[in-house]
Every structure is written in C-alpha cells, then in structure tokens.
C-alpha cells in the first residue's frame, strides 16, 4: 500500500535556472498538499497534463526526491527515513531513467541483480523468465544503443522487475512506444495486477487510464482536483468519457485555462 499524506514539493530556483527560465520567481510549487492512497493489488492512475506534478509525485514515492512537506509511506515504511528498504520493495520505470547504452541487456540485468544483492542463481532464473516474457532473448548480447526504443523499454521493464517488487510505479508507460510494444506493456501491467502487485501509473493518455486503472486521481497545477473510479468521475462531471471529464476538471481548476483557451 502507498499512502501519500498531504505532500508539497517546492523546487527552489538557482540563479542559473532563473536566468534560463527568464523568471524572477525564487521557487516553483510542483505539488501542493497532495494526498491519496493506493490500495494493495489495485492499479491507481495519476492523470494530468505536462507539469501537473505527476512525475514529481512518483519520484517522491520512489525516494529519488524528498517531499518539502508531508510524508509518504510504502507498505508502512517512510520514504525518507527508510529509503533503502522502500527501494527494495518497489520499482520505478520512467523515460528519464535509462539504461547505459554501452552495455548489453544481459550484463545490465546481472549488474542490477548484484546491486540488489540477489544471488546468482535467482538472477539467472529471473532473467530467463523475464527475457522470455518480453521476447528479448535475441537482443541479450547486443548493446542497448543498438536496440530500438520499444525493445529498450521492454528491457528496462524486465530489469526493473528483477527483484519481483510488491509495488510497481510506472511514469507514462507507453510514451514514445509503437502500438504493438505499448499494447504488450499494458498487458504486462494487467498481468502484474493479477499477481496481486500494487501498481501506480501516471499518464495523460485517457484510453490508457480507462483500460488499466481501478481508480484515478486528476492533478491540475500540482493539486488533486478529483479522485475516484471511472464511473464516479463520469457521474460527477456528467461527461461521456474520461477525456470529457478531464477537460471539465481542467477548465474548472487550472490557472492556465486562459492560455489554453478552453
């Protein structure tokens, strides 16, 4: 179970960043007083536009960032105080977290297995199982830089699952993938759900959220503006589909609405 309790994340701007962004602001609030719970065995979706705070939230849960305020627990473990133990239990896959292009999938699988202090025989068994599942055995000895984006994503997914984590966090799972690879990734997430894993994804693709998520939270400008099952969101907004519901939430809550002319 993941519990996000009233977290706020503020990024302070350095002088260089202020220059680059051409702003006089000293900081940016990426996430503001955000709370939600991901129950065991469900797929929970964070829905929002770019800059809504989805990735920051996922990074805070995965211990890469520390919330400025509030706290997060993963299976009862605090993500700041027990960061290493949290990392043992979860997996984060995002387009920003990449594999070293100079190495082969085979080497990297072993490497990350050893980094997690997994015995060699278990690494070998997991490698066989996951490489077969994703059908990437034939690429095992090729360098990552020689592989297509879709194959890289499958290998990243296989490597991120090496320790058979209880909790899987996936930031934009299908962004940049062709339709076949995207479909196989979504199928894998549904398989994981069947195995009882707890899954948290962020997306801005409505069809993906509709297909996968048991419950959805809508983020606008770093704040949660709605949360519920798909039928609950549709009922509340009187929309026909998730896209319609999302636009309604966005229009009602975004400071950027004028700019977007919605």
């Amino acid at each position, binding site marked *: 179970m993941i519990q996000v309790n009233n977290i706020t994340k503020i990024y302070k701007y350095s002088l260089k960043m202020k220059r680059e962004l051409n702003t006089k602001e000293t900081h940016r609030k990426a996430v503001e007083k955000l709370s939600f719970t991901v129950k065991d065995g469900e797929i929970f979706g964070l829905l929002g536009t770019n800059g809504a705070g989805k990735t920051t939230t996922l990074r805070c849960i995965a211990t890469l960032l520390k919330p400025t305020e509030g706290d997060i627990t993963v299976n009862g473990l605090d993500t700041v105080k027990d960061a290493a133990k949290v990392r043992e239990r979860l997996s984060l896959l995002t387009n920003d977290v990449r594999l*070293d292009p100079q190495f082969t999938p085979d080497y990297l699988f072993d490497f990350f297995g050893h980094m997690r202090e997994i015995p060699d025989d278990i690494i070998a068994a997991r490698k066989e199982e996951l490489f077969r599942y994703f059908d990437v055995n034939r690429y095992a000895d090729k360098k990552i830089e020689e592989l297509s984006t879709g194959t890289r994503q499958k290998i990243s997914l296989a490597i991120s699952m090496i320790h058979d984590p209880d909790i899987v966090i996936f930031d934009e799972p299908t962004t940049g993938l062709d339709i076949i690879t995207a479909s196989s990734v979504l199928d894998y997430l549904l398989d994981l759900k069947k195995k009882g894993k707890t899954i948290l994804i962020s997306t801005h693709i409505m069809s993906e959220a509709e297909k996968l998520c048991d419950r959805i939270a809508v983020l606008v400008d770093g704040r949660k503006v709605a949360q519920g099952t798909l039928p609950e969101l549709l009922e509340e907004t009187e929309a026909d589909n998730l896209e319609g519901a999302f636009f309604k939430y966005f229009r009602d809550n975004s400071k950027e609405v004028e700019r977007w002319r919605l």
Partner: protein
Amino acid sequence: MEAVITVFKKELHRIFKDKKMLFSTFVLPVFIMIIIYGLVGNMTEKLQKEMSQYSPSVYIVNSTDKIQKAMAGPVLDLSRVSEIDGMAAEDTKELIKAQAADLLIVFPASFDADIENDSGMPNVEIYYNPDNMNSANAYTMYLEMMQDQVYKSYLADKVGGADKLDIFTVNMKADGEASYELSDEDNSGSQMLATLVPYMVVILLFSGAMSMGTDIIAGEKERGTMASLLLTPAKRSSIAMGKLLALTVITVISATLYSVTMVIMVPKAMGEALTGGGFNITVGQGAMVFAIIIALAFFYVNVVTLVSVFAKSVKEAQSYTTPFMILVVIAGVLTMFNSFSSGGQNIFLYAIPVYGSALCLSDIFSGTAAVGGFAVNVICTLLISVLLTMVISRVFDNEHVMMNS
C-alpha cells in the same frame, strides 16, 4: 561492500570491454605521443645535422695577417670568410638584413697597432641578424672565438709566448684516468628528465582523471543512467566509492602508460645527449613513485568527481574542471624552477596537494628524495582525498544535485 565492488567492476567493464573506449583511452594517446615525439626527434636531429654542416658566410673589414693567424684553427670552418674593405660594409649589412649573408666583423683600422702600443681599447664590431638562425649561430660561435681564441693569441704575443698564459689547470691529472664525477650510479639520472617527468606526470594524471571522470559522473547524469543506479537499495556512498576506485585505477593505468611512453620518447625527441638518455631508479624509489601516483590519482579523481557531480552534462563538467587543470599546470611548472624547490628542507611544502607530489617526484628522480617529505605528501594527499570522498558521498544524497531538481 558488494555494491562498491559491483559498481567498480561495471566502470572497469565500460572501459576494458569496449574496444572503441579502450582504443581512445589508452592506445590512441600513446600512439599520438610516439608519432609526435618521433617526428620532433627526427626534425631536431635533421636540424642539428644541418647546423653542424653549415658554413656561414662571414665578411671581415680591416683584416690583417695577424688577425687571420689568430682566427685560424680547428674550431671553425673559415672557408666562406671573405675580406672586404670598409666601403662595402654598409652593403654587407643590407645583405645580412636580407639573410643573404650571415656575419660582418669590423676590426678598427689600427687594431694591431693599438694593441701593440697600448694606445686605447680597440673595439671589434660584429653585425648579425637574430631573425636568421644561421646568422645567430655564427654570431655565437665567432663571438666566443674572438673572446677566447683571438684574445688569447694577442695576449700570448704581449706576454712572450702561449705557455706563459697557463698558470694553473683544472681537472687535468697526468694519468688522464682520474674521474671527478662523484654521483651515485643508481641516481645518475639526467636533471632535465628529473624536472620534466614530474611536471608531465602531474598533468597527464589530471587529464586522465578529467576525461574519464566527467563521463563516468556527469555523463551518467546526462544520459539518465544515474537515476537507475540511485533507485537500487545500495547506499549512495557505496555507489560513489565504487566509481571513485574504478576511476583511480583507470587514471593510474593511463598516466603510467603515458609516462612510460614519455620517458622512452623524450630523449629521442630532444636528443640523448641533452637529456642523458634516461635514468635509473631503484626498486624502493619505484615504489615511492607508484605510491605518489596512486595518492595523487585518488586526489584528482575526487576533485573531478566533486566538480562533475554538480554538472548536468559532460560539456558542463569539462568547463568546470578546466580551472583546476590550470592550477595543476601552475603547480607543475613551479616545481620546474629549482629556486622554488625545498630540496627536502621545508617539509610543509610537501603537504600541499599536487605541488608536494611533483616536488617529491622531482626529488626521487634527481636522487635527493627524503622519506619524511614522501610520507608527508602521501599521507596529506590521501587524507584530503578521504575528506573529499566524504563530501562526495553527502552530495550523492542531495536530490537537487543528483536529480538536477
């Protein structure tokens, strides 16, 4: 500890299993050094040969039999020496300016008489063109000849014979076998290499650490692969330590390769006579050199890592490390001047990172190394490096730095 070893192995794997990386890191620089020093050596040899075979065109005004007799001898080739009258002197100066002639020597008309009668101090004028290498060389040779050979010839005439000029000798024993060189055979290295090698070692070590370190740290951040490492349960300090140790090993190997290449190639490039053709050091001295190189490499790797970790890209990291490269060059250059060298007297100088190491290396290669200075240098360099490692471990825990947030 397993994480340290795993990261260490991965970084070594990155270099040693990748043919392109292996070639660009170790083979290509050595190959380039061999070609450059080989070319310089050939050109120097050719130039020296040409210079030794060249006979300068010299014009003399107011030459007399006595002057010709004084100038004659085995030292200089006088085959292109011509006598001219004073009227042609101005034309000859123009020829020298145009590099069509090399030298003009003007004796006063009353040169012989003035010396014989002690009537004044006659001045000989030698005109040359410093922009023309042959003219400049001819000037040096003829000036020396005038001040030594010609001067002594005239002086001998005045005192009544050349034998009267010899009043004492230096290092001239009758048996001719006596050797006055008292250096230890083990330390009979050339002073030039003892000066040059420490300077080059401190610079080559840094350039090795710089090229690898910026890629291993800032490159990982730029490629987005650092985050995948930070997502493992391994301690951030273990990740940092693994990288630092691997970088140290790679830096030491590359610097050793470059230094050995240099020690072999520099005498060829600069002429064996000039450099002494190499040097001999004992096993103990070799161990001291290796200890200094390891300590210095670890220090450099820490500096480069600490700087690189704040950069978002390799390019940015390289621009941050460039000022440190300048400091390293300055420290290396300072040890090339003997006046700055403590010669083992001021032990505190050995505690200064980089400068102290270069000083120590210089002492070892010139055979004046003291254990005290060596120990102070290695201990201080390692202590500062460990402090930097602790800072780096803290920085690896800083999300603003590691995630560029």
